């Protein structure tokens, strides 16, 4: 029995990482095709990560600079265990959706602390923008989560997923909340219209301005996990998880491609306009969804 | 267009010569330069396009010129005056034409002409720790400077040591 536990303990993060990294690969290929370019070869993100990890001359600005990416990656691996994979309950028993919201924040807080230690104003401005954006998209996110909890009378993520497994997805039952959910996942991934925090031309890739070599490698692995976490959460909340891994991957791929299309086309929001946008349209949609559930 | 030239001619101490249909030269003596600029501005020449100097090494003088432009009459005017070459000094035209401020700082650094009254006359402008003579003066030999400060790449045949491939 113990062998199975260890197998899961190692297998799940690797599976999550491979899903995340494959989505990143698709992303660069599709983005290139949208720009009528040929695009890099398929496993380019993987090569980038290994090249960064193999860099010889790494630098450090202090303890917190090193700990930032380390804790961020550790936090992302932890979160993966609390999101139900197809067919596996994992550890959703010990932390429900509200706890999950707080666990997901450890990673961004650790990166922010690491960026702060790198003593570069670009990274500080990037972090200030990232946190402001987080406050922006958290309002609709919370309303959506409350709507789902009230609809299914439980905060256990696995139970919410099971309740929709039959095909009555929350996407069709609560369409407005689903739209708000997609827009929030958009902001949580930091995709183009909301990427004022890591804008290359404004703040020299924001928090990552001073990161290079193995630290940047860890951050890119963390980004792969982050993509998996956001999409898996959305699929579990609104599309009822999946019986086997291929359905799960297909659903995540569909949502991600939808996000890429918007990402490549829209210009970038200024950070306070992004917060105003989030507190206006997605919040109204989510509130209407909430009232529908409250009234029913 | 004619009467603008008449009006400029009437300004005291200005010898006006018409070079082209929309370009006139106004030569003025050194001490009436600033007042001339003021009068030209009153005439409607409210843009200072550029202001610099010409190093007349042969008759040992600098020639300061201000290129002005009149939008209504669509005519350029170049106000010129001669100043002596050793420890040359001019008054600032900053108050009349604000853009002159930067041009004058460049003048000081490139020609060595001191400008009295410029708000940032002392501060370094472009060149970083430049020890030599102001570079735009004609008596500054740039090839000699280049040979002394930089090494040229030897052509492939003369190349002896293999360090730079």
């Amino acid at each position, binding site marked *: 029995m113990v062998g199975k536990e260890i197998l899961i303990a190692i297998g799940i993060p690797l599976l999550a990482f491979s899903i995340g990294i494959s989505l990143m690969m698709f992303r660069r290929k599709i983005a290139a095709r949208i*720009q009528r370019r040929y695009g890099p070869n398929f496993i380019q993100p993987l090569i980038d990560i290994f090249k960064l990890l193999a860099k*010889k001359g790494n630098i450090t600005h202090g303890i917190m600079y090193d700990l930032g990416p380390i804790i961020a990656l550790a936090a992302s691996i932890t979160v993966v265990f609390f999101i139900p994979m197809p067919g596996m309950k994992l550890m959703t028993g010990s932390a429900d959706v509200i706890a999950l919201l707080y666990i997901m924040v450890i990673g961004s807080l650790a990166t922010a602390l690491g960026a702060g230690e790198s003593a570069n104003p670009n990274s500080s401005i990037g972090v200030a923008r990232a946190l402001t954006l987080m406050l922006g998209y958290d309002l609709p996110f919370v309303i959506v989560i409350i709507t789902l909890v009230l609809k299914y009378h439980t905060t256990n993520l696995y139970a919410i997923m099971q309740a929709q497994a039959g095909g009555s997805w929350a996407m069709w039952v609560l369409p407005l909340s689903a739209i708000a959910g997609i827009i929030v996942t958009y902001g949580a991934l930091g995709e183009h219209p909301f990427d004022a925090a890591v804008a*290359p031309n404004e703040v020299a890739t924001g928090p990552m301005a001073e990161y290079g070599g193995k630290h940047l490698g860890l951050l890119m692995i963390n980004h792969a996990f982050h993509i998996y976490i956001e999409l898996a959460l959305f699929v579990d909340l609104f599309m009822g998880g999946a019986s086997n891994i291929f359905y799960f991957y297909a659903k995540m791929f569909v949502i991600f491609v939808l996000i890429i299309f918007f990402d490549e086309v829209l210009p970038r929001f200024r950070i306070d306009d992004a917060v105003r946008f989030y507190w206006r349209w997605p919040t109204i949609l989510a509130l209407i969804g909430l009232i529908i559930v409250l009234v029913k | 267009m004619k009467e603008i030239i008449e009006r400029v001619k009437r300004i005291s101490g200005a010898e006006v010569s018409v070079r082209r249909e929309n370009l006139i030269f106004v030569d003025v003596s050194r001490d009436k330069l600033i007042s001339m600029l003021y009068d030209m501005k009153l005439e409607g020449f409210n843009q200072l396009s550029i202001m610099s100097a010409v190093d007349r090494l042969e008759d040992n003088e600098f020639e300061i010129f201000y290129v002005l432009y009149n939008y209504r009459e669509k005519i350029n005017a170049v106000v010129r005056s001669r100043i002596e070459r050793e420890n040359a000094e001019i008054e600032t035209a900053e108050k009349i034409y604000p853009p002159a401020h930067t041009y004058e700082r460049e003048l000081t650094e490139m020609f060595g002409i001191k400008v009295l009254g410029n708000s940032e006359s002392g501060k370094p402008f472009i060149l970083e*720790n430049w020890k030599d003579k102001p570079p735009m003066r004609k008596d500054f030999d740039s090839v000699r400077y280049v040979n002394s400060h930089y090494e040229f790449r030897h052509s492939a045949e003369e190349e002896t040591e293999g360090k730079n491939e």
Partner: protein
Amino acid sequence: MDKMTEEQYRAISNMLRKRSLWMLHYCTGCGAMELPPTMTSRYDMERFGIVPYVTPRQADILLVTGYVNTKTLRRIVTVYEQMLDPKYVIGFGSCPINGGVYWDSYSVIKQLDKYIPVDLYIAGCMPRPEAIITAFRHLMDLVDKGKADGYRRYKENLDYYKKNQRKVLG
């Protein structure tokens, strides 16, 4: 790690570095205009995994595009020293080779190689994107064979480079 795996490790890391060179978006001279066409759809250097990055910490290649005057040289040296170790320098156009048309100018340095180690020069008074793509392919071969060792040369005779830099920068 005995000799064999040491060799294999170096070969694999060279292959990795070849396939994903990150270019520093720090263009000094008039050559910067040639880069957008190489990045975008017609010539698309991303096919080779070459992507423009913003800060020296994240980049591998430093492009010195066009003439380098003393003021820019001071910034180029700082940026070069801030880049992480396996780093390469490409000199665009004739000005970094021998000063080009500015051969007699008091402010332009005549030979970039004296101040920072250059792995690759591209001749032409601003080479066209095709030339840049062939240069990148040539650099990738150099990296693959491990011959692009400018950074090692910089470390070994650091005082030689520093002396030249002090001579010009003062």
